[in-house]
C-alpha cells in the first residue's frame, strides 16, 4: 500500500515535471528568404500560427534573407540563446553544415525543413522534414501514364539546373515513367528556371520542332502554365496533356477550366506544421526517423474540390 502510494507520487512528479518541461520549450527557426515568393511568405505565417496555437511552445523566428553568412550567424545566435531546438531552412545545402555541427556539439537538436542538406551533414541533424520531391516526380509520372493510356510522346520542362528540387523531381519522374509506362517516350528535356516566360519560349520551340506532342511535364505549375499558353497560341493545347509538379493558383484555375490535367498539391501550411511537429517530437524524446515527408497528394479535376486554391 505504502509502496504503491510512493510510486504514484513519483509518477505524478514525473508527469508534472514533464509538463513543466514542455512549458519551457523554446524553438528557434531560421528561414531561407521570406518575402521572395508566396510559398515562403505563407510558410512563415503558418509556422507562427501553429506555434501560437500550442501553449507550450515559444518560438524565435528569424529570416536569413537568402544570405548564407547571415544564416550561419543566426544559428550561432540561437546556440548562444540556448534554445531547445533549431529549425533551419537551408539557404545552401552545403555551406550551413559547419553551423549545424556547432549546434550539434552544443547539444541542441537541429531539424532541417523543406529542402535537404548535403549528405555530409546528415549525421549532425536530428531529422529532416519536408516534401519528397522524388515521390512528387513519380506521382506526376503516374498521372501522365494514366492520362495518355500508357502511350505517347512527351516533353519535359525542368526547373533550374543544379537546384536539388529540380533534379529530384526530374529523377523521380523519369525513373517511375520508365518503370510504369514504357510506352511513353520523353522526346526532350529543357530547363526553364522556374520561369513562366522562359517556359513559354521553350515550349514554342518544342512546338516548332515536334509535330506530335502528347504531353508536357513541368517542374511546377508556373512553368506548366507557360507551356499551356504557348500551346494555346499555336492552337495545339487541345491535343496535349499538361501535368505539373507543384500546384500554383494559376495551375489550379487551369485545372478548373479543364485545360490542365493535374499537379501535385504541396501546402506551405502542411510544410510548416510538419516542421514544428517534428521538432516537438524530437524534444519529447520520441523515436523520430531521419527523413520525415509530409503528404503531397495528386490533384486533378476529379478531386479538385477537396483542396483550397493555393495562395501562390
Amino acid at each position, binding site marked *: 500500500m505504502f509502496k504503491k502510494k510512493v510510486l504514484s507520487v513519483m509518477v505524478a512528479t514525473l508527469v508534472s515535471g514533464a509538463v513543466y518541461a514542455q512549458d519551457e520549450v523554446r524553438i528557434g527557426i531560421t528561414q531561407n528568404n521570406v518575402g521572395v515568393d508566396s510559398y515562403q511568405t505563407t510558410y512563415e505565417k503558418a509556422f507562427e500560427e501553429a506555434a501560437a496555437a500550442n501553449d507550450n511552445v515559444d518560438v524565435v523566428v528569424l529570416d536569413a534573407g537568402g544570405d548564407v553568412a547571415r544564416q550561419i550567424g543566426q544559428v550561432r545566435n540561437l546556440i548562444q540563446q540556448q534554445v531547445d531546438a533549431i529549425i533551419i531552412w537551408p539557404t545552401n545545402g552545403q555551406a550551413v553544415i559547419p553551423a549545424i555541427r556547432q549546434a550539434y556539439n552544443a547539444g541542441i537538436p537541429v531539424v532541417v525543413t523543406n529542402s535537404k542538406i548535403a549528405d555530409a551533414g546528415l549525421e549532425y541533424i536530428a531529422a529532416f522534414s519536408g516534401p519528397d520531391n522524388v515521390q512528387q516526380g513519380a506521382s506526376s509520372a503516374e498521372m501522365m501514364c494514366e492520362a495518355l493510356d500508357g502511350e505517347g510522346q512527351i516533353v519535359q520542362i525542368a526547373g533550374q539546373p543544379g537546384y536539388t528540387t529540380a533534379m529530384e523531381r526530374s529523377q523521380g519522374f523519369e525513373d517511375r515513367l520508365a518503370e510504369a509506362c514504357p510506352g511513353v517516350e520523353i522526346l526532350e528535356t529543357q530547363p526553364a528556371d522556374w520561369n513562366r516566360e522562359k517556359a513559354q519560349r521553350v515550349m514554342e520551340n518544342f512546338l516548332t*520542332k515536334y509535330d506530335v506532342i502528347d504531353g508536357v511535364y513541368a517542374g511546377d505549375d508556373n512553368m506548366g502554365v507557360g507551356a499551356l499558353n504557348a500551346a494555346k497560341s499555336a492552337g495545339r493545347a487541345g491535343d496535349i496533356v499538361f501535368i505539373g509538379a507543384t500546384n500554383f493558383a494559376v495551375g489550379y484555375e487551369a485545372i478548373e477550366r479543364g485545360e490542365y490535367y493535374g499537379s501535385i498539391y504541396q501546402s506551405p501550411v502542411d510544410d510548416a506544421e510538419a516542421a514544428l511537429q517534428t521538432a516537438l517530437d524530437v524534444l519529447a524524446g520520441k523515436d523520430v526517423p531521419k527523413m520525415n515527408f509530409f503528404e503531397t497528394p495528386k490533384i486533378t479535376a476529379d478531386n479538385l474540390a477537396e483542396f483550397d486554391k493555393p495562395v501562390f
Partner: protein
Amino acid sequence: MASAEHTKQGFMLSKKHKAGLLNFLSAQGILVFFLICMFAFSLTSEQFLSQSNIMTVVRQASIIGIIAVGVTVVIIGGNLDLSVGSMLSFSTVLVVDLHDKIGPVGAILVMFALTLMLGALNGLLVGFMRLNSLIVTLAMLSAIQGLVLIYSGGQNVDIANQSDTWFGVFGQGYLLGIAVPIIIFSLLAIIVQVVMSFTGYGRRIFAIGGNPVAAVYSGIRKNWCVFSTYMISAFCVACAALVLGARVMGSQNNVGQGYELLVLAGIILGGTSLLGGAGSIWKTVIGVLILGFIQNGLLLMGYPYYTQWLVTWVIIILAVWLDLANKRKRLLTRHS
C-alpha cells in the same frame, strides 16, 4: 578594236564592282555573319527556315529588341544602362498587378509614368550629377529589384480573367497577320533610327558620346542630352513590359533578371561601340535577331539552352575581334 575596248571596260567595271562588293562585305560583317548563321542552322534543321519558326523567333526576340533599341541610344551617348532588367521586372509586375485593380488603361498609364520616373532618376544622377553611369545603373539594378519585392510582398501577380480583357493583345495579338510585339519592335526601331540619323538631336547624341568636351564647347547641352537618353531607355522598357505582361498574363518578381546582359550582348554583337559615339539601331536589331536565332537553332538541334550562353559569348568575342581587326587593317591601309 571596239570590242576589245568594250571588254576592257567591262572588265574594269566588274573589277570595280568586285572591290565594292568586298568593301561592302567587310563593312557589313555583321550582316554577312547573320546570313551565314541562318544558312548553317537551316542545314541542320528542316523547320528552322519555316515561316512559323522565323515568326516565333522574331516574336521571342522582340522584348529584348525593344529594350535594346533604347539602351543603344544610351550607349551611343557614351553611357551604360544596366538597370533595364530590374526596371522590366518592376514595370511588368506593376502593369499586371494594377490591371485587375484599376483596369487596363489606368494600369498602362501608371506603369509608363512610374517607369519614366525611374528613367528620370537615372538621367538625373548620370546627366546632371555627373555620376559614373556604370555605378549608378548597377546600384539601380539592385535598388529597383528591392522595390519590386517590397511592392509585391513576394507574391506572383496574375491577371484573373484572361479572356475578359483586351490587354493580351500587346503580347499575343496579330495585326494584318503580323504579331503585335513584332510591330511594336519594328516601329520603335524605325522611329529611333530615323531620329538618330536625320535629326539634330541624333547628331548631338553622337557628338557627346564621341567627344564630350568638344560637344560641350560647341554649345550642346550635354546634361539634358544624357538625361533624355535615359528617358528613351525607360520608355522602351515600359513598352517591353507591356509586351511581356500581355504575353505571360502574369509576372514573377524577377522576370527581368538577366535581361540587361542579353540586351548588352545583342548590342555588342551588332557592333555598337561601348565607348560611345558610334553605332546604329539597325545593327542592334540584327545583333538581337542573331541571338534569338542562335538560341532557337541550338534548341531545335536539341542542345540544352544554357549551351547558348557559351556559344553566344564565343560568337560575340569573335565578332568584336573581327570587327577590330578589320578596322585596324583599314586604318593601316589608309595611312600607308
